[in-house]
């Protein structure tokens, strides 16, 4: 059960030295800290029981942005939207297309921070082609669970000097360190984009067609199957130079897809923002949301099984089928306590892992937002955290896999 039912006291330091002081003070009292940016996505991961919330949103400095060197260094508290706007001003972007997801949790998207984007490690539709958040983190500064500030990585495109702590900390949900500063690799944004929408021919067939397309050297940077009027639609996005996109589009003809509808650049951009933020699922505000990582070849069978078991009301596939999102109604038959483990078991049978992206606190606390891990891996992860945070005071339990108590992690 959750120990603290009331909102925690908020500490919002404006410099790294103060972040370190807050952590040291908590450490000396053996007190847990909830680590957040601006707290717009607190519903992601397991709920954290802590009397104090450490917000990094007060660290808002842009250290440098060197477009010719493809690198930007910002404090963790800079809003993601500000970073994206700054890059767009120079024709550049974050290639991993970070989803914001704040709206899913009732947060204000404009307040979501870059630190939160890296701490949660979420990557959007383009990931299967260009890499994930962790592939674009060149350097990280943070404060560990002892209240010690440290720097890791660097700012150069290539760097194999010592252990790659930047990757380890990306996606660690503030359980190893409070991230204070990030150095990211950025890239020139494609000149234009175009999306083709085709009617679905059944998920199994759609996934196979997408696999064939993705095995060819085409500039495909989006491959999703989403709910559409009268069923599902297959969406294929091409990005690049205008002549390149036109040439690749021509080659998609004869790929086994029926005639489709074309979304030009502006419409395409809007469409993929709806995919990225899961608007296309049409989830009700009470629905639970799942993010399921599954081999593309097992996605269609899993979708059938979930529908047959009446566990989901709406679903979509991304990354050519390797990522499934679905909605589970609050009033799912058998209740969440029965439905959550059943969905996880079906995902596991398909070789996949089901993450409970959104659910009421008690359900995430009871079942875990993340699926179970092999015992050896869970123990290794716990030991790895412990060398950064020996007392386990930073976001305790936030990443605990299902079936593991917060103390174990």
């Amino acid at each position: 059960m959750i120990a603290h039912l009331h909102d925690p006291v908020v500490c919002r330091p404006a410099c790294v030295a103060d972040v370190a002081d807050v952590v040291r003070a908590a450490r000396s009292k053996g007190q847990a800290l909830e680590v957040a940016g601006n707290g717009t996505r607190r519903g992601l991961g397991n709920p954290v029981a802590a009397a104090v919330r450490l917000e990094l949103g007060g660290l808002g400095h842009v250290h440098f942005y060197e477009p010719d060197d493809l690198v930007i260094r910002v404090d963790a508290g800079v809003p993601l939207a500000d970073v994206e706007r700054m890059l767009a001003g120079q024709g550049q972007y974050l290639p991993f297309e970070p989803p914001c997801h704040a709206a899913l949790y009732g947060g204000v998207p404009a307040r979501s921070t870059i630190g939160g984007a890296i701490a949660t490690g979420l990557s959007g539709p383009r990931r299967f082609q260009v890499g994930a958040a962790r592939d674009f983190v060149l350097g990280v500064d943070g404060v560990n669970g002892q209240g010690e500030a440290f720097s890791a990585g660097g700012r150069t495109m290539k760097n194999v000097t010592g252990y790659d702590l930047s990757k380890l900390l990306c996606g660690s949900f503030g359980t190893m360190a409070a991230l204070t500063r990030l150095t990211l690799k950025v890239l020139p944004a494609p000149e234009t984009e175009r999306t083709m929408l085709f009617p679905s021919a059944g998920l199994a067939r759609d996934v196979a067609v997408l696999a064939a397309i993705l095995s060819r050297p085409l500039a495909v940077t989006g491959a999703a199957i989403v709910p559409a009027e009268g069923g599902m639609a297959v969406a294929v996005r091409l990005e690049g130079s205008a002549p390149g996109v036109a040439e690749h589009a021509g080659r998609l003809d004869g790929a086994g897809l029926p005639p489709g509808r074309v979304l030009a650049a502006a419409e395409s951009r809007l469409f993929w923002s709806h995919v990225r933020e899961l608007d296309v699922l049409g989830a009700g505000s009470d629905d639970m949301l799942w993010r399921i990582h599954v081999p593309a070849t097992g996605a269609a069978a899993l979708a059938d099984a979930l529908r047959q078991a009446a566990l989901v009301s709406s679903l979509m596939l991304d990354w050519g089928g390797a990522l499934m999102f679905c909605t589970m109604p609050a009033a799912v038959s058998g209740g969440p306590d029965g439905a959550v483990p059943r969905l996880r078991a079906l995902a596991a049978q398909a070789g996949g892992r089901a993450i409970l992206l959104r659910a009421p606190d008690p359900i995430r606390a009871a079942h875990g937002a993340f699926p179970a891990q092999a015992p050896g891996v869970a123990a290794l992860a716990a030991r790895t955290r412990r060398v950064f945070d020996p007392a386990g005071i930073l976001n305790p339990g936030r990443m605990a896999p299902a079936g593991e108590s917060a103390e174990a992690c």
Partner: protein
Amino acid sequence: MRMPDPDQGVIARRGALAARLRAIVGAQWVLDDEAERRPYRCDGITAYQATPLLVVLPASTAEIRAVLAVCREQGVKIVPRGSGTSLSGGALPLEDGVLLVTSRLCAIVAMDVENRVARVQCGVPNIRISEAARPFGLCYMPDPSSQMISTIGGNVAENSGGVHCLKYGMTSNHVVGLEAVLMSGEVIRLGGGFQGAADGELDLIGLLTGSEGLLAVVTEITVRLVPLPEAARVMSMSFASVEDACRCVGAIIGAGIIPAGLEFMDRKVLNAVASLLREEHDPRTAALLLCELDGTAAEIDALIERVRGLAEQAGAIDIRASRTEEERERIWRSRKLAFSAIGKMCKDYYCTDGTIPRNRLPDILDRMAELSRTYGLDYANCFHAGDGNLHPIIMYDAARPGDLDKAEAFGADVLRACVDMGGVLSGEHGVGVEKRDLMTHQFAPADLRQQQVLKCAFDPEELLNPGKVFPSPCRCAEFGRMHVRGGEMRFPDIPRF
């Protein structure tokens, strides 16, 4: 460079240990005779040598597990090794340590074309993955220049790069699953057979990749396969000054073009290569850039015209673009032969691996010229310009007393200069023993400590590849005491709570 003193007690037990290990892997797969052990004395850096206590060649994950268990029980150190092509001494043996050679784990376990991944054992040479993927129109993108020989396990340990990593990324960007054996004897499986298999977990794959064999022995790797690029053409651009060439590099990237490869060669390298290839360059040429562009034919044509315009603006005196695959290979041959051509020009050479922010290229090249005068040693430059990864080639004569020391000091000064300009000690070769003692120049004590303590989570007895990467041991046993010290408060009574 100093390694930890060998434990004579362990060396005295060589025979007994060999017998224990033979019971696991079979008699012929443990080499204890000195004549058999000697060929393993060094890796790609021949300047550092040590004959290993024993060489063990297991054939499976289970055998590796059993070998580690015996070593742990006996308190014997282990150095993992693939093909031994490391350019930083990562696989340098220890006289009191077992050299664990992975070359018998060389099976391609599964080619999963539909999910575009390959599952392979750690001893598979890099090139074999692409060869196996080619019939399906796919390839494994990271291509270190050692790819004919170096193993994928070694590539994972070092997070290897290559000519194409500017556009396509390093090894770590292509690994989706790992199987590894821990010193505890546990076999752990991370990620899986598809991209995203490890999402929502602590990124232990990201940590193990590039950990230089200090944390675990990686036994099986699942890598991402990508479609073979449809076509590629390479441009060869001559400049009358190094500054012009550097400006051109910045202009290409600044224009939003990410070439598949962007390589720099100076006049000395060109002269060395010309004598092998009988290839003439404009006599005014001080630096040559090779710029490879890939995509569809129409896209490449358009890019070549854009790069040509940028190169002309930067003052290029000669620009050529390959029109056929034969021409492309011929132009690349000069780059591929660069190191052996230099090798023919001098008695010995030493090549290092610093990386700088790309816009500091002219500064670091000036600094190298200055250092060359100070040390009285000649040097040449041939490097990955697109990502600021330098490979200065320092020429010396090992037979001349003091020359090797001077060459090492010259290399170390270059690496220090890289760090001082905002760069790092290693872009793709790793730290190993070569750059180990320079780590304190790049990292403050707290930063180094934060990396090093990870040893306590994986190998608290510090038996895996000791003496590499970090200038001093971690001393995990003392870690507990450090906590108490770390818990002392600077401001014990801050009133925030």
